[in-house]
Structures are given as structure tokens and as C-alpha cells.
């Protein structure tokens, strides 16, 4: 008799949704001047969760002005020790409200509650705790004796880890003494708005954190605003390039965390069962909506068949469905437009002759879904080996020697992350020295820690987030040299 897991949904009752939300400017929720609203939708059900304001040029002006005043009058002059108190308070409030925030994140984003509860939220709190600790120790961070903040930071974040990306941006900015205007992605604004409420709960001085909701145009207005000293963007390489062009010559400091097409390299002496787990975690974590996803699997040819057999068997056990069910492994695709992009690239893989295999799982009737999919017989020339799919689609390539593995891994315009699987320590070090990627994982994948810097090479961007290195993006480093 089969062991069927009964549905185990996390309750939505803990989330108190309002029907519409304003913009968070200068410590208060206000209506957008233009009065335009847009809807945010639960991607697993296509149900409208709330209406959200679209910030226009006037609203961006107001928010940047509020951030400037807060920077000059309160937050900039405040001692690091006092800034730390606010950050610790925010971190504790996030922990206290973590279940509510995890449920809200899963509803708005479509990611499984298991991930929002066990990965996103613990990391969000950890980022605030970590950076709270730095706030009064910046003179010991290696940026000179009196590192100064930059001023007002414009921050634009993606929809794949909405609250975690907010934490990566807001925590170091505030710890270093900057004020922020942050724009969450248009499909996932709700946890950023809940964070605005946490800022109020923490009595954070008005204007230190401002949240503007909106789509690409709002983001463009924000990053191009002349009152901004620093721009931090995480998102697509295409938008990143546009931002870089617009920032050229303005004196704005810029950090970009863009796309990726990471190689996950498995050698014949790898711990195979754990490598299979790492491959799954590398590309099917968060439905593959991960910029550092291990989307190119490079298998040593001598073990390729064995690993692919094990991988397919393992993918057969993944549970796709209701993101709020505690046993769900694969949630919903965040939007219909993202699903269309995945469909388009998967079709190109089929057309170009790669062999497609998708896990046999039932797809719910409503919402946007894509089954875990593996392409074998992929070569460097296939689009699915070069372009970021940002979905649960793995391209499998093979190699014969370590040199060939390095060559193929590096043969991409991106350079965000890479994985190495081998029981041989010396090979890990040899590979790590040669891989042009900002993060190299050995015998693991998609591990994050606030103390560890994250960022890319080449078209994956520049600048680091997290760790001592990440502080440099929010401090007037040049002025000290």
C-alpha cells in the first residue's frame, strides 16, 4: 500500500492582507500622486492578493527628498551604536513575525513554504543581525579609520527572493549610515510593504527606509534620479546594462548583481548521492528562479549515464503543487510572462536537437507551473546552454578532463557561481583558482551566509553583497584612499 502524504497546508490566517496598499514615504503610507494602481497575484491560484500603488515621478521625488533629509538630519549623524540598536530591533521583529512573512512570501511569490520558512526567513533575519553587528565597528572593516556613508541609496530588487534581496540591500546600507529608497519587483511587493510596517514597529526614524512600488518605469525614475548617490540593482543583465549607461558620468556609485548560467561540475570521484542532491538543490531550488542556479550540469563522461539515471529517479520524488503545503518541493512559476520565457527556451532546446525529459508530476489546473526538466545531449552551442532560463530546466553537458571542465565552465558571458563535486581536495582548490565565478561551492550548492560575499564576474555584474566586502559598496571608500 502506498504511503500517501495527506495535505499539510500552512494556515493563511496569520497573514492580514489589506485590499490596497500605498507607498511608504517618510515613515507613512501615502497614496501615489498619479493614483494608478496595479494588482499583485498569487501565482499558484491566479487570485488577486491586493492592489498596490504605482509610484510616478512626483512620488520618486518625494521619497528621495525624504531619504535625503533623514540622511542629513538623523541617520547620517547618528552613532553606529545607535544605528545598530535599530537594526537589531528590526532583526528581532523579523524573527517574531517570521511565520507571517514566510506565508506572505509564498503567497505572493509562489515558492514552497518549506523554503520561505527554512531558507529565506532565517537568512533575512541573519542579514540584519550580521550587519547590526558591523554598524559600530566600521572603522575596523579595512576601509580606513573614518569610513563615511554615501548618502541616499536607490535599490531595485527582483522577484525571486523578495524579502531576502531586500535584506541584502537594506541591511548593509543602513548599517553603513545610508538611507534608502527601495523598489520591490512589481509581481512581489507584499513582503517589502510588510517590512515597511516592521520599520514603523521598530520606530525607525521617518525617511530612513522608503518603499516605492511599481514596475520598470518606476525603477528607471528611481535609479536615474539626480538626488541619489548610490544605485544597487539585482535583476536581469539587460536592465543592468541600461542602468550602467544611465549612471555613467553622474558620479553615482553602482553595484549590479545580474544574471548567471552557472556550471555545476561533477567529477568521477564525486560523492554521487550527495552530488545528485546538490544538482537538485542547484537548479530546482526556488523553481530555478535563482541567478546563481547551477543550470549547466557538467558531468565527467565516464559517470554521465549513472548520474543521469540517479538524477531522474530523484526528480521523480519531487512534489510539485500548493506552495503553502509543507511537503511541497516545487512551487509555482512567478508569473505568466516568466512561464512564457521558460516555454520559449525549452522549445528552442527541443528544436535544436537536445533530448528533453520532464519529471512525471501532475500540474495543477490553475496557476503557472513547469515540471522539473532535464535536457541531455546539450552542447555549448545550444541556446539552453548559453541563455539564462530562470526556471526549473537543467542542461546537461559532458567533459573528459579537468582542463576541459574549466574551459567549458568559463565559456559563458556570465560568471556568478559554480559548483565542484569531487572527493579530492587538491582538485577543488585547482578548480576554484581557475573558475571565473564570484562564488564557487565545493560539494554543496546554493549555500548562503551573510558573512560570505556574493557577486559576479563579467555580465553577472560587479560589487559584492555580504561580508566585509559588501560593506564597501555602501561606504565612501575612494575618499579614504
Amino acid at each position, binding site marked *: 500500500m502506498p504511503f500517501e502524504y*495527506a495535505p*499539510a497546508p500552512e494556515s493563511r490566517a496569520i497573514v492580514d492582507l489589506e485590499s490596497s496598499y500605498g507607498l511608504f514615504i517618510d515613515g507613512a503610507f501615502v497614496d501615489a500622486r498619479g493614483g494608478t494602481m496595479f494588482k499583485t497575484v498569487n501565482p499558484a491560484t491566479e487570485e488577486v492578493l491586493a492592489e498596490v500603488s504605482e509610484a510616478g515621478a512626483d512620488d520618486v521625488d518625494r521619497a528621495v527628498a525624504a531619504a535625503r533629509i533623514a540622511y542629513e538630519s538623523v541617520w547620517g549623524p547618528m552613532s553606529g551604536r545607535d544605528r545598530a540598536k535599530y537594526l537589531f530591533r528590526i532583526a528581532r521583529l523579523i524573527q517574531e513575525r517570521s511565520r507571517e512573512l514566510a506565508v506572505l512570501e509564498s503567497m505572493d511569490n509562489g515558492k514552497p513554504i518549506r523554503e520561505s520558512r527554512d531558507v529565506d526567513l532565517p537568512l533575512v533575519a541573519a542579514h540584519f543581525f550580521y550587519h547590526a553587528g558591523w554598524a559600530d565597528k566600521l572603522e575596523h572593516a579595512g576601509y580606513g579609520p573614518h569610513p563615511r556613508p554615501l548618502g541616499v541609496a536607490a535599490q531595485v530588487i527582483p522577484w525571486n527572493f523578495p524579502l531576502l534581496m531586500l535584506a541584502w540591500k537594506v541591511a548593509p546600507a543602513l548599517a553603513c549610515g545610508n538611507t534608502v529608497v527601495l523598489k520591490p519587483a512589481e509581481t512581489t511587493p507584499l513582503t517589502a510593504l510588510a517590512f515597511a510596517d516592521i520599520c514603523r514597529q521598530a520606530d525607525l526614524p521617518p525617511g530612513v527606509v522608503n518603499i516605492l512600488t511599481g514596475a520598470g518605469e518606476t525603477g528607471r525614475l528611481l535609479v536615474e534620479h539626480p538626488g541619489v548617490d548610490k544605485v544597487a540593482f539585482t535583476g536581469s543583465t539587460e536592465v543592468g546594462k541600461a542602468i550602467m549607461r544611465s549612471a555613467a558620468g553622474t558620479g553615482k556609485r553602482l553595484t549590479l548583481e545580474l544574471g548567471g548560467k552557472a556550471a555545476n561540475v561533477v567529477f568521477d*570521484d564525486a*560523492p554521487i548521492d*550527495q552530488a545528485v*542532491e546538490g544538482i537538485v538543490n542547484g537548479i530546482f531550488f526556488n523553481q530555478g528562479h535563482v541567478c546563481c542556479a547551477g543550470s549547466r550540469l557538467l558531468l565527467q563522461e565516464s559517470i554521465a549515464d549513472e548520474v543521469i539515471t540517479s538524477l531522474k529517479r530523484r526528480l521523480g520524488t519531487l512534489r510539485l503543487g500548493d506552495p503553502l503545503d*509543507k511537503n511541497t518541493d516545487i512551487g509555482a512559476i512567478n508569473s505568466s510572462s516568466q512561464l512564457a520565457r521558460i516555454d520559449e527556451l525549452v522549445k528552442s532546446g527541443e528544436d535544436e536537437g537536445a533530448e528533453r525529459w520532464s519529471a512525471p508530476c501532475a500540474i495543477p489546473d490553475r496557476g503557472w507551473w513547469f515540471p522539473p526538466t532535464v535536457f541531455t545531449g546539450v552542447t555549448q552551442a545550444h541556446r539552453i546552454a548559453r541563455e539564462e532560463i530562470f526556471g526549473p530546466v537543467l542542461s546537461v553537458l559532458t567533459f573528459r578532463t579537468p582542463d576541459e571542465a574549466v574551459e567549458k565552465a568559463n565559456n559563458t558571458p556570465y560568471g556568478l557561481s559554480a559548483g565542484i563535486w569531487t572527493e579530492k581536495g587538491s582538485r577543488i582548490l585547482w578548480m576554484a583558482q581557475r573558475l571565473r565565478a564570484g562564488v564557487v561551492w565545493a*560539494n554543496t550548492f546554493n549555500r548562503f551566509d551573510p558573512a560570505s560575499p556574493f557577486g559576479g564576474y563579467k555580465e553577472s555584474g560587479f560589487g559584492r553583497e555580504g561580508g566585509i566586502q559588501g560593506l564597501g559598496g555602501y561606504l565612501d571608500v575612494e575618499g579614504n584612499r
Partner: protein
Amino acid sequence: MTLVDALPDSSPGSLRRFLQGLPGVDEVGAVGRAAALGTRSIKKDAKAWAIDAAISMVDLTTLEGMDTPGKVRAMCAKALRPDPTDPTTPSVAAVCVYGDLVAVAREAVGDDLHVAAVATAFPSGRASLDVKLMDTREAVAAGADEIDMVIDRGAFLAGEYGMVFDEILAVKDACGPAHLKVILETGELRTLDNVRRASWLAMLGGADFIKTSTGKVSPAATPPVTLVMLEAVRDFHETTGRLIGVKAAGGIRTSKDAIKYLVLVNETVGDSWLTPDLFRFGASTLLNDLLLQRQRLATGHYSGPDYVTID
């Protein structure tokens, strides 16, 4: 798997090359995988099913110096009817006793349950092969249809794989028709690489079941160790077509823990292993917690320790 080409003959060199050529186990990864499966939420019908399944997989065990015929008879009565107030409660899989009490146990359970005897100088395994074989034959003659043997951990850690292998072969032969469970005592093997190698060694030697622990060494069964053994059983089946069972023994005391093991089995080797023929719990106190949880599911409230029997 290409393992089938690599399967060793019984020469020491061939065994050593084969066992040391098995893929390594990354401990961090294995522990992480077991922990992730431990977060599965098993509720309602699934929980009711799992509790009954777990009860039917228990080897109800007493392995104490103070064991007496009276104690064993009482345990056998409980094994047959774990919850006298509810006849729908399944009986356990087997009773597990020392060799000298096998006859008492067999008389008490008749042909309704398996009788397992620990043999081969349990728990340390420190005796001559002759003594171990005699121990085994006597238990089988007294009515045991399952033998839980221990491997020679000293020989294993010294790299004498051939010696361990020969001993398993000899005990298997002495078992006759009785099923052989081979106890690896993973708490003494320490590394997961050793657990994988010992699992293969035992299966190649003719084990019907591989078992984590004696229960006399801490740590006994753990989810990562059981995961690695399940992977070995899965790979052995793919290589040879033979189905080998796994017994997690020692340290599993709560229903919650037992259900985590069932999830581990379900998602590692599949639900065809979720039968007493292929998965067992070696436990003494686990049964009462399973019964308490079973009563709670039936009545909606917790009864208490006085509502399950202490035998």
C-alpha cells in the same frame, strides 16, 4: 550502475578494491538530506497509516542481563496484542531476545510472530568463529527464524574485509532456513564511508537484512546512517536484483522519529520497502508511544502512560 561489472569475488584483494572503490559519502550532504526529509509533515490519514505500518515493523526487543522467562513471556503477549483495548491494532513483526530465551519466546508466540535471536557473541562479537557458529545453531534449533548477528568491527576497522566476509558467509550457512540480519554497529564504524562499505560487505556475504546497531553503543540508529544504508540497499538491488531489508535499531523512541524513518524509506528506496519484510524497527519503548499516538488519533485526546501496558 556499472557496479555489476565490478562485483568482487571473495578474495580479500578483490573485496578491498571493490569496497574502497565505492563512491564516497559526503557527510555534510548526507546529514543535510536526512534533516530535510525530517521536515516532512505527516498528518491525518497519512499519520494513521504510518503509525500502523510502524507498529507492524517493530522487532519488540529485550536484551538485558536481567531477562527472565517471565519477562519474555510478558513481552510476547504484548507483541501479539499490543493494545488489548483495540483489536484492530496490528501485531508487531517479531520478538527479539538472547539465544537462551528463544525457546520461551517461541512457545509464547507460536507461529504467529517471528522470533529473532541475537547471536555471534552479541553485542561485542568478541569470540572465536566456532563459538559464534554454535551460538547461531543453538538459537535456530531452539526455534529462532531470524538471527541478528554482529560483524567483527575490529577486523573491519583493521581492513580485514575478507575475514568479516568469511564470518558472515559462515553464519549465513549456520542459519539454515533462518533469515540473517547483519548488525554493522555503525556507532563504532563512525564514518559514513565505512557504513556504505560495511553495508555492501554484509549484502555480498548473504545478509537478508542489514541492521544499524546493537542498541548497546551510542549513537545507535540515526537518520543519516539509515539513509546511507538505504542507498546501499537500493544500489544493490539495481545491481543484483536482490531485495535486502534494513533494520534501524536503538534510540528510536517516539512516533515522530519513527515516521521520519518511514519517510526516509519512502523517498530513498520507494514504498515497496515499506513492509515488515524489508524494513524493521529494533525497539523496546517505541511501541508504547506508537500506541499512545494511535489512541489519540482514534479518540482525539491523549490518554496517558497508564493506558498502555508496560510489558
